[in-house]
């Protein structure tokens, strides 16, 4: 059984991004980039399934600029067997629908039994790609997974929903997106980083896959969110209660 794991290179989650002064986007030049945290969880889950002997091969995929190779090397250091980069120009605004179409083409080619993605990327916060891939490939989906139990022809997935948890059973092949509590991704070790350098990394272009990646949404403007007025520190609980009652009038 083969698993495909799409991973995205994003601005590191600890970085506080700044909006460019001309309002065309956020400034990501010279900012630390990392693998999207949800995708690390996806790679970890795929590797754990392989370590349990349920899976024979884990393929990591990334769509984007040449530097996404680093993200793929990280995935291989965690334990992915090989990687595919779908390389797109740096000036292209690559959107979830286009990525889903690229992944659909790879699913057709590689025929994985399972695709595990992160539930959302922390840059565009879209939360769409997994669902879109499932739709295009006509596969069942289980989003926001906090537990995955894989059997020969079915996968049982516990999902985080608004009021609690829900368990679904999907026939394979299927698409799963990970939530935070699915697992704790391992740290990559130096020997594994070295080994990952020797693993196979193929590069293809969207044209090779026959996919039109033109953006569908036009970003007109990116602005700073409205600033909150400066707050005050209060000396004690009595002062706080007084402020809440008489100034803010919220209690």
């Amino acid at each position: 059984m083969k698993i495909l794991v799409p991973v995205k290179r994003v601005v590191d989650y600890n970085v506080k991004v700044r909006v460019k002064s001309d309002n065309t986007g956020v400034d990501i030049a010279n900012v630390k980039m990392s693998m999207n945290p949800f995708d690390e969880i996806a790679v970890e889950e795929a590797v754990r399934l392989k370590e349990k002997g349920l899976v024979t091969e884990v393929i990591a995929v990334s769509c984007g600029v040449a530097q996404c190779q680093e993200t793929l090397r990280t995935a291989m250091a965690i334990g992915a067997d090989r990687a595919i980069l779908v390389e797109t120009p740096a000036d292209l605004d690559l959107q979830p629908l286009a990525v889903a179409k690229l992944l659909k083409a790879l699913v057709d080619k590689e025929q994985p039994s399972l695709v595990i993605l992160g539930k959302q990327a922390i840059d565009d916060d879209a939360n769409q790609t997994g669902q879109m891939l499932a739709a295009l490939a006509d596969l069942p989906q289980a989003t926001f997974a906090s537990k995955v139990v894989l059997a020969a022809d079915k996968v049982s997935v516990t999902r985080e929903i608004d009021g609690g948890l829900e368990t679904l059973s999907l026939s394979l092949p299927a698409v799963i997106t990970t939530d935070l509590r699915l697992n704790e991704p391992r740290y990559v070790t130096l020997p594994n980083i070295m080994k990952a350098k020797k693993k196979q990394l193929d590069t293809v272009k969207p044209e090779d896959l026959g996919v039109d990646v033109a953006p569908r949404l036009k970003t007109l403007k990116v602005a700073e969110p409205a600033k909150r007025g400066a707050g005050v520190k209060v000396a004690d609980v009595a002062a706080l209660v007084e402020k809440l009652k008489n100034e803010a009038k919220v209690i």
Partner: protein
Amino acid sequence: MSVLVIAEHDNASIKGATLNTVTAAAACGGDVHVLVAGHNAGGAAQAAAQIAGVTKVIHADAAGLEHGLAENVAAQVLAIAGNYSHILFPATAGGKNVAPRVAAKLDVAQISDITKVVSADTFERPIYAGNAIATVQSGDATKVITVRTTGFDAAAATGGSAAVETTAAAADAGKSSYVGSEIAKSDRPELTAAKIIVSGGRALGSKEKFDEVITPLADKLGAAIGASRAAVDAGYAPNDLQVGQTGKIVAPQLYIAAGISGAIQHLAGMKDSKVIVAINKDPEAPIFSVADYGLEADLFTAVPELVKAL
């Protein structure tokens, strides 16, 4: 053309998120129709017909729609999608699950978590954990959108008198099935709809302390209880209470953050609250930068004192 809202419901009644989505739909222009796809969901369809501003309710009823499986609900939406210029879902776990599936089948981009309708094809949405607001324009024939409920007022739940029309239910795709669920029981107001929220973080130290310190304050204020990711990961609170970029997005009248440092990811979920109170020992905690009222104190003494003072 009309605008379609996909109702969030539990078959018997309509969930509050639907009401905010109706308001966003009205801002897109045109008649607002609501789809209630469920099983034995006549109650929910009747409730949807009462919502002010809704002109028609479309009710699809089949066993396969009972638990909102994405494959089946998406097929149901697609069956009627041709009649609509806009298809709106609340940005809840249910809406986020289905909307992209519908969009991909229609070959259109989906627009996530909108906070404002600028015009019928232009919308505002937060990106980078709410640290930037993008204005996006869609050239697609059908706009498939999820609506951040805290960005829009709720439509009145009564006062409408829409006709309920029954439509043929989509066939069960047969690729997925519902096994079971564990829904956390709570007598408190729903987190995303609460007027007041009391939230606890890692500083509480244990589940017992979390319950012992946070619950009395929430009881006193009639508030919902929230938690930071750190508190949830440590097991102090169940994960459906998590407030933040990857949990619930809330915007109550009053948000009290006790023992929460205020990481970017947490702020993304609560910084649109009207009044924010921070109680924290650490004067450097980033939460103080968004708090209207900050109290630098040990929460184990300050919170019980606050309960007493109210």
